[in-house]
């Protein structure tokens, strides 16, 4: 047991070990971001569709399902954030004296700002959870509706109320722009870290990453814009 533990802590202490964990948790979070967006797009199907979906998530496995997902995601976020902060600190320490002139030849803006886009997304996640999950400083808990003869939480009304306040919507859109920037590098990057990219698949992973980032940006922002423009009401 302790021999295993020793090896695992050596793995975590190493640069590649931490990066592999960042890649694996990144992969989990990619899946979550996609699922979360698809679920939320149900708002365009109608009030009952999204409320039914929300109710299903809440009652899955007698209410345990949502907690299993939450704990898994929390673990992934903690590992992803802690490891990347440690890696970034080590990276800064590895070059203390700055160049008088340093030119990036091939790398893009998104790849140079991962820590900042990431930390902003972290702040956004906390805000988003307080806003729609914990429902702090609002009365969304009292929003109820009747679905198939059962009283359930009115997700539909909550989303409309939530995005009717401009500062919140603007923060959502900014966060989505940064998320798509983060994804545009992170997506293809994780295949390199996991050791599966090849000369033939790398261009494909790159394009898929841009497409994925664009999809998440358009999909999530469409909900905010639809509420703003009164298309969903």
């Amino acid at each position, binding site marked *: 047991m302790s021999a295993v533990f020793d090896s695992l802590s050596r793995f975590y202490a190493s*640069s590649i070990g931490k990066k592999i964990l960042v890649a694996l948790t990144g992969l989990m979070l990619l899946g979550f971001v996609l699922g979360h967006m698809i679920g939320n797009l149900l708002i365009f199907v109608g009030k009952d569709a999204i409320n039914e979906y929300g109710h299903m998530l809440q009652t899955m496995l007698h209410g345990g399902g949502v907690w299993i997902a939450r704990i898994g995601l929390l673990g992934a976020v903690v590992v992803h954030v802690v490891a990347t902060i440690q890696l970034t600190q080590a990276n800064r320490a590895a070059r203390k004296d700055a160049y008088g002139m340093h030119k*990036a030849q091939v790398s893009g803006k998104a790849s140079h700002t991962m820590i900042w886009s990431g930390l902003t997304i972290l702040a956004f996640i906390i805000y988003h959870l307080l806003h729609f999950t914990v429902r702090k400083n609002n009365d969304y808990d009292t929003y109820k509706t009747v679905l198939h003869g059962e009283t359930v939480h009115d997700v539909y009304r909550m989303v409309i109320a939530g995005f009717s306040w401009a500062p919140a919507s603007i923060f959502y859109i900014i966060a989505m722009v940064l998320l798509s920037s983060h994804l545009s590098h992170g997506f293809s990057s994780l295949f*390199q870290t996991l050791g599966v990219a090849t000369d033939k698949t790398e261009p494909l992973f790159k394009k898929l990453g841009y497409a994925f980032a664009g999809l998440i940006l358009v999909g999530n922002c469409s909900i905010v814009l639809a509420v703003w423009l009164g298309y969903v009401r």
Partner: protein
Amino acid sequence: MSQLNLHLKVWRQNAGQPGHFQDIEAPEIPDHASFLEMMDIINERLIAKGQEPVAFDHDCREGICGMCSMQINGVPHGPEKATTTCQLHMRKFRTGDTIWVEPFRAKAFPVIKDLVVNRGAFDRIQQAGGFVTVRTGAPQDANALPIGKEVADAAMDAAACIGCGACVAACKNASAMLFVSAKAGQLNLLPQGQPEKDRRTLGMVRQMDKEGFGNCTNQYECEAACPKEISVRWITKLNRDYAVAAVKDAFGNTRKEAGGGD
């Protein structure tokens, strides 16, 4: 032959002390001179004026030893692709240009003087596993060990690494992954390298981390700067080899020390 009048900003530093850029005028530089020959001309002039010449590393001056380390206008070995500083010619510049000349900067490459840095960290990484152990005795027939042409060619590509450190210099994190992956991958690919593959991979990565190099963020600046065009696919392979070796290390059987002998 035409001549160039250049303005240089050259880094001057003594080990352990803070450094600074010195403005050096470089008039009448023949355009057929190499970058190092230009530095020689400047040093002659500095010496003639009774000033301290600029210290820089060089050896073969034909692109094979990896000694000539200079960050030229923000890029290791200067603007020419797949070219070492010694093979860079002044005709690639224009008269009137300002050229920044700095050492390769990394915590793991401390400055010895001016443009000369200590790249001993690379040697220590090599000593941590970048070799195959060869037993003494009669060698076997060369053709007793069949190696596919593709494999031999790929290993040869990795073996082209001259250990110059440009990959570290180009990386915003001063990561040595391209160098380490080329040195480990070249042997991990060949049958001769198999017996020590996991030990090599774990050992070299551990030494790389210990030397204080940064972590790769998959931006591939190293590949763009490498004078030998080492591919970042070697880094992919190192990541893969490391994952496999770490899993075996964590969950595999423990090695029993061989008994007997003396």
